């Protein structure tokens, strides 16, 4: 009986588990937005894409019986939403922020409308890789039950980082994001690059959404996202447009979110409202600590702030 108790060790374990479980949607959405923003465009609609991905992932999984088809379907729906954003933004004098808000409302509303019949049925979910097989502790094994999507996300972050820095298409995306005139002078179609970057970002956000409904918490309902997509977009700024830092930021955010419940579970209940706000407090603290008057916006793609 007592060998199952963890006591205070439960807190770091919960933070570890939380970092792995909760961070994945943040990771995918922020990586997606990272690509989009590096091309010089902001897609605020990713909250809608995330919810739409959660709904469609669950729906595809339910209809086809395969959760991986669900993930793929969510990604495709996400990239369609992204492409729509990219296409409309390519029109003259369209503001990407305003359109992003419209896309957010569209995605969320559409997902609620189409997802109504999906609340009750149970769809097949994604499984997990038991990385904790070596341990005899049930708790550790459970915390290290890692979903494949998390592994993909973690691998994707350095890959994207490398891709943006060292490959031809990475250079094109960055050029478009830094100076559309230069890109045009080099013969690149700025709008097409941005459209593809937004669609790719939408794909990742859709996959992130499917993680919510198909793995953790693992069901479709209308309160599922509660703003995680918006927070992930903010994380990109926090991570200063670097895919690698997006990974750290997502892990930090996921882990900090687990502090509140974990403290209460070991009987530390003073100020739980404050602990529940830990992710935001921590983000704020790091933002303040890492801010600088001189180099703050050095990493920001120049086209993001430019008037069009």
């Amino acid at each position: 009986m007592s060998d199952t108790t963890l006591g205070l060790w439960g807190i770091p374990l919960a933070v570890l588990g939380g970092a792995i479980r909760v961070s994945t949607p943040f990771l995918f959405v922020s990586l997606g937005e990272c690509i989009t923003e590096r091309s010089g465009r902001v897609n605020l609609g990713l909250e809608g894409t995330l919810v739409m991905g959660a709904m469609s992932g669950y729906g595809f999984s339910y209809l086809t019986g395969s959760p991986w088809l669900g993930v793929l379907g969510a990604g495709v729906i996400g990239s369609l939403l992204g492409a729509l954003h990219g296409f409309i933004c390519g029109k003259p004098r369209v503001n990407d922020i305003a359109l992003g808000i419209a896309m957010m409302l569209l995605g969320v509303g559409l997902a609620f409308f189409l997802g109504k019949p999906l609340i009750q049925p149970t769809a097949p979910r994604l499984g997990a890789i038991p990385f904790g097989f070596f341990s005899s502790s049930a708790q550790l094994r459970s915390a290290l039950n890692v979903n494949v999507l998390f592994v993909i996300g973690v691998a994707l972050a350095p890959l994207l980082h490398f891709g943006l820095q060292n490959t031809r298409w990475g250079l094109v995306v960055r050029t478009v994001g830094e100076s559309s005139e230069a890109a045009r002078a080099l013969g690149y179609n700025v709008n097409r690059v941005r459209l593809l970057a937004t669609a790719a970002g939408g794909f990742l956000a859709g996959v992130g959404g499917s993680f919510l409904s198909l793995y953790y918490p693992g069901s479709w309902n209308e309160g599922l996202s509660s703003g995680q997509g918006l927070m992930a977009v903010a994380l990109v700024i926090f991570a200063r447009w670097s895919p690698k830092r997006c990974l750290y930021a997502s892990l930090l955010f996921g882990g900090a979110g687990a502090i509140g419940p974990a403290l209460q579970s070991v009987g530390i209940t003073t100020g739980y409202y404050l602990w529940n706000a830990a992710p935001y407090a921590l983000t704020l603290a790091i933002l303040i600590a890492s801010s600088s008057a001189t180099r703050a916006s050095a990493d920001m793609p120049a086209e993001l702030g430019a008037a069009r």
Partner: protein
Amino acid sequence: MSAKREHGDDSLMMRRSAPPASSTSLFQRRLLLTLVPCLVAFAASCSKKEEAPAAPASSAAAEATPAAAPADKTLTVGFIYVGPKDDFGYNQAHHEGALAVSKLPGIKIREEEKVPETLDVQKTMESMINLDGAKLLFPTSFGYFDPHILKVAEKYPNVTFLHCGGLYQEGKHPKNVGSYFGYIDEAEYVAGIVAGGTTKTNKLGFIAAKPIPQVLRNINSYTLGARSINPKVETTVIFTGDWSMPVKEAEAANTLIDQGVDVLTAHVDSPKVVIETAEKRGVFSTGYHASQASLAPKGYLTGAEWNWEKVYTAYIEKVKAGQMPDHLVRGGFSSGYIKLSPYGAAVSDAVKAKADEAKAKLTAGTLVIYAGPMKDNAGKEIIPAGTDHPQTDISLESMNYLVQGVKGKLN
């Protein structure tokens, strides 16, 4: 007039922003221009997304107007929910009651879900009254009462408003308003017995939204029930801070299970995530609001459910007979306002017998849950020996303590 004023403001703003800005401030201005719609959109998305699915309902309502107006004998009853009506939780329980009502002869129901506890609910109530001809309204969410129901009730004295929660006060509130509530902690007590008799680690977990009296009463009754059969049981409480936080609820469930808890229950709008997480991790669970048995075929032990069908059909009889229903309606097992989910496969016969015995005693009114001497979890005496607080005791509705055996603190 107001449109004119708005327009004036608009042009003023445009004029203000018209002079060409210098290139350095251009970026700042853009930033401002982008930030403001962001905030607006965020606020809008909070209310907008709740409205979106309601649209078909109101269009259906508009079509129904001519039919509803002349039909004097049909009673139109409106039900308003704060969340989705199939949430496996609070709203589903009310929706099940509404479905039972719709089967009564001469009754037509109108439902609207995801109505926020804001001016929106006043609009919904008014449109149900004016467009659908509703004479009886059940705005079910706790926060609808003050000021929304009170305001609309004064405006429409011929319509009856019945609110779930027990907030009605004689003399203070309009005559066409009433409150109803169930002593669901009786069912929690029995569920606690089942949990306490089934747990192997003697640790129960309770995931709750906020430390308000109704929630505390459920936590306490659950723990008292569990300790009546197994005094070694402890209940660990986690407050998530709000009624619907799926990810946080899942985190709370996981961390409780990591601490050795092997029976989980919840008092949130929809216990779906908690029950599913418990099943996934292979521990037991007991439900709340509605039956979640289908979500956890292995681990679901039992659950405390509302039985609004009973309350609603009784109300309708009164209203159809032209009477104003009682202003304050409360009841537990004895009046059939609450029920238990059928016992799950994991519940032993001995535990079932104990639970059934307690249920019978509660139904007969011979078992008092809050009987002295009783201590809170800090060791302070809260009910002296010889004092009984039966279920109808109004003092229980301002509960502000956690009983001995609950791990957690209120602050």
